[in-house]
């Protein structure tokens, strides 16, 4: 493409690009506020941290992130592959029940399992009374440990990997599997040499979400007594009373995440992942006998451990405590939770489409970076995001008020701080990555030749998006919307700090009771979070199957 042509193309996209870049910059404000702390002078707390706990934080965070990656990959890849490539009894049932653990916030599943499995819990107590054991007479795995945390977090986050891979597998032509089968290549070799390498963007997108969410997790590691970067950040702030050092610690965490993402981008720079046209019929390896049983076991374990067992336990607790706990205020809680989730979902979906498409039409090298910066909030603990929102918003409020008072003699007070607007904004920043990743991934699957053809036919940027891309990425957008909805329903720390007066959500209620170790009392609201999240998850599954049909591939 000649220079002139390129310039003209750039110019025709200018409006869209300006809009995308300004949205991205707006969304980057909280993260930028956090990163800004890096250039502030460091206090002597840093030398204390370095000489005592920093190495532990880094090591534990690394072990946790790697462990959860392995855990979610093992579960996610195996189940996605089984459900896409094999036919066995119950496959259809598993293909959607495998998504259910997503409804559990990690801290709730951690509380639930601890209640069941720790030394003083029912399982070990029964063992002790059955065999007459006492402490030290027997070995039982310690749930509240880093291994326990890895298992808990993996159990509720693997659906990200599973979901994105299953979608990718179903969008791959099944003729690949068929051809490979005809050449006598076994299913394992097919998976590792053909299918998985081709689905790498999906796997990476899933694992990126998993890693970011893991690093931002506070509830689980805090309860398990595993010192990580995140608990360290809050310890520096709350315990040492040094917010600047705490945000500097958060920046360090962010820079690490950024480095990992860049390294991954660079490593697959050369490869392209656009799928050729698909063939109508889907072909699966048939399974029977012992192999079918094995497939059923592999698929049912994650559902059992990640959803059914904890849900039953919560249900049992709820039955005992509900009459006392559930009152009229519960409806307000549900309304607030859903209201916030709907607002945030709408904003994120729109912004994701604008940004992801901006990345596609923008040729300048800086655009992808700007866009990705707006998604960094996912790796930042919610409470730090809250600070990143609070500081600039309060500044803006004061600046506006000062200006109005000087020039018009009126006071506007606080317009943004402490309102639903700042709360929603914080959520948008925190969960932007989910929307963006999913819309981005589905846009990437549309071959560029389509854009070029449309452009040759004189289609303007907006027309191309509205008439061509938007209908093709509907599935991706719906996925984004449903995932965001579920995440907002579960979100806690930012809500705690930023909410308006008397604005409680289910997560806030759950946390207040659970952190007071009133787990049984917290179960009603916890179960409601799960119940509210299940519906979008089921819709999610349907939408993916449907979009698969639209694309001509049956799942």
């Amino acid at each position, binding site marked *: 493409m000649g220079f002139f042509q390129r310039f003209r193309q750039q110019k025709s996209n200018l409006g869209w690009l300006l809009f995308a870049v300004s949205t991205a910059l707006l969304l980057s404000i909280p993260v930028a506020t956090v990163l800004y702390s890096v250039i502030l002078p460091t206090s002597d707390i840093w030398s204390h941290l370095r000489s*005592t706990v920093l190495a532990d934080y880094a090591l534990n965070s690394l072990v946790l992130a790697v462990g959860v990656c392995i855990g979610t990959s093992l579960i996610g890849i195996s189940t996605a592959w089984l459900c896409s490539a094999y036919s066995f009894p119950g496959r259809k049932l598993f293909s959607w029940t495998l998504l259910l653990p997503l409804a559990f916030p990690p801290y709730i599943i951690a509380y639930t399992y601890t209640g069941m499995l720790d030394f003083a819990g029912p399982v070990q107590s029964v063992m002790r009374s059955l065999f007459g054991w006492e402490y030290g007479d027997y070995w039982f795995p310690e749930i509240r440990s880093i291994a326990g945390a890895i298992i808990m977090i993996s159990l509720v986050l693997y659906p990200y990997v599973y979901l994105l891979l299953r979608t990718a597998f179903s969008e791959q032509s099944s003729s690949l599997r068929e051809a490979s089968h005809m050449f006598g290549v076994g299913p394992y070799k097919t998976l590792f040499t053909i299918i998985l390498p081709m689905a790498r963007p999906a796997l990476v997108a899933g694992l990126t979400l998993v890693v970011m969410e893991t690093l931002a997790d506070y509830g689980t590691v805090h309860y398990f007594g595993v010192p990580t970067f995140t608990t360290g950040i809050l310890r520096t702030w709350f315990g040492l009373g040094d917010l600047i050092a705490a945000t500097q610690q958060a920046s360090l965490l962010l820079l690490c995440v950024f480095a990992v993402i860049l390294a991954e981008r660079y490593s697959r720079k050369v490869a392209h992942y656009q799928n050729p046209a698909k063939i109508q019929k889907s072909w699966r390896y048939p399974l029977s006998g012992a192999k079918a049983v094995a497939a059923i076991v592999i698929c049912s374990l994650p559902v059992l451990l990640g959803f059914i067992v904890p849900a039953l336990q919560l249900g049992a607790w709820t039955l005992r405590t509900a009459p006392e706990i559930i009152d009229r205020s519960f409806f307000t809680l549900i309304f607030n939770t859903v209201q916030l989730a709907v607002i945030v979902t709408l904003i994120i979906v729109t912004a994701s489409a604008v940004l992801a498409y901006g990345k596609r039409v923008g040729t300048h090298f800086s655009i992808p970076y700007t866009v990705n910066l707006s998604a960094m909030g996912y790796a930042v603990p919610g409470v730090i995001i809250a600070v990143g929102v609070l500081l600039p918003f309060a500044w803006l409020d004061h600046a506006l008020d000062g200006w109005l008072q000087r020039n018009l003699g009126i006071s506007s007070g606080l317009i943004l701080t402490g309102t639903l607007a700042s709360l929603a904004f914080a959520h948008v920043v925190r969960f932007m990555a989910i929307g963006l990743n999913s819309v981005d991934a589905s846009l990437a699957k549309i071959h560029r030749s389509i854009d070029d053809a449309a452009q040759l036919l004189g289609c303007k940027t907006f027309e191309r998006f509205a008439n061509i891309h938007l209908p093709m990425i509907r599935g991706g957008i719906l996925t984004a919307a449903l995932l965001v909805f579920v995440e907002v329903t579960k979100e806690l720390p930012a809500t705690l700090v930023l909410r308006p007066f008397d604005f409680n959500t289910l997560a806030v209620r759950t946390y207040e009771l659970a952190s007071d170790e009133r787990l049984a009392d917290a179960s009603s609201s916890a179960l409601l979070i799960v119940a509210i999240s299940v519906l979008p998850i089921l819709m999610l599954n349907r939408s993916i199957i449907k979009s698969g049909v639209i694309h001509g591939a049956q799942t």
Partner: protein
Amino acid sequence: MKIRILPGVQLTLGVCLCLSGALLGAAEVNVYSARKENLIKPLLLRFEEQTDIRVNLITGKADALLQRIVSEGDHSPADVLITTDAGRLYRAQQSQVLQPVDSQILKESVPRQYRDPNGYWYALSLRVRPIMYAADRIRPEELSTYEALGEPLWKQKICVRSSNNIYNQSLVASLLAHLGQEDTLRWTERLVGNFARPPQGGDRDQIRAVAAGQCGLAIANSYYLGKMLTSKDPAQRQAAEKVKVFWPNQEGRGVHVNISGGAVAKYSKNRTSAIKLLEFLASDDAQQWYAETNFEYPVKPGIRPSKMLESWGKFKADSLNLHRLGELNANAVMIMDRARWK
């Protein structure tokens, strides 16, 4: 026609509502509370009934609420800040978001060591952190002081939660105030050496671990034991019944206490109502409520603690002025870092 009238009616109604609110000057007070909703709301409702002052509430972590007040600056809607420890009140005062309150009622209700010397904050309840022991395995004669928990006798015997917890930070801060830097570090290291397991869970978890036999002693706030003893869950009750309270340092300075307390925000627009609320929270009624419902000790002298609290016996409390806990908190955290108290 109907369609045209409806919005008009709505608008008029809305304007009327707004005006009536403004004209009546319905008094209100905005509370930022680190005390959880279910542990403050019942009292606030009672206050609303008695005074016709409307109370708006947000709850959250104390430091985050404090940061919000700081950012909001002179427009902050906050009138009252309620925390569950003295250190945070001290920090709020240092951040210059509080104003001194000179109330005769508060001064008479709250003893000197439980309020700021200049009236910036007042304690509203006492939270005591004694030693708890397994009644069937540990003889109370073996116990004496916090300091003695560092002795080899207690190797592998002690359960306590993470040092991220403010109650542990305050405990170490109180030792810093009494013993100084060197001795406190040495004690903390020895204590960590005596842990039966890496710190995990909350205070109730420590009590449960004592009951189940994983450790012989726990350091935990007494009201948690009270809540377990009255729990609807039979397992919690059974566990709590196996555990007894020991008041340490009774020959010396007394058992470590912390407070929950309140303060009036510097830029409060409802100062009178805010002070009224604090006075209400220090009143006999409210003080009794803390003792009956949450098993905390009343801060006001002469209020009879609940039956449960009486059954644990009388104790001598550390008379250290609590703003010292705030001053020494960061130092305490550093010592716990150095002693590898997770």
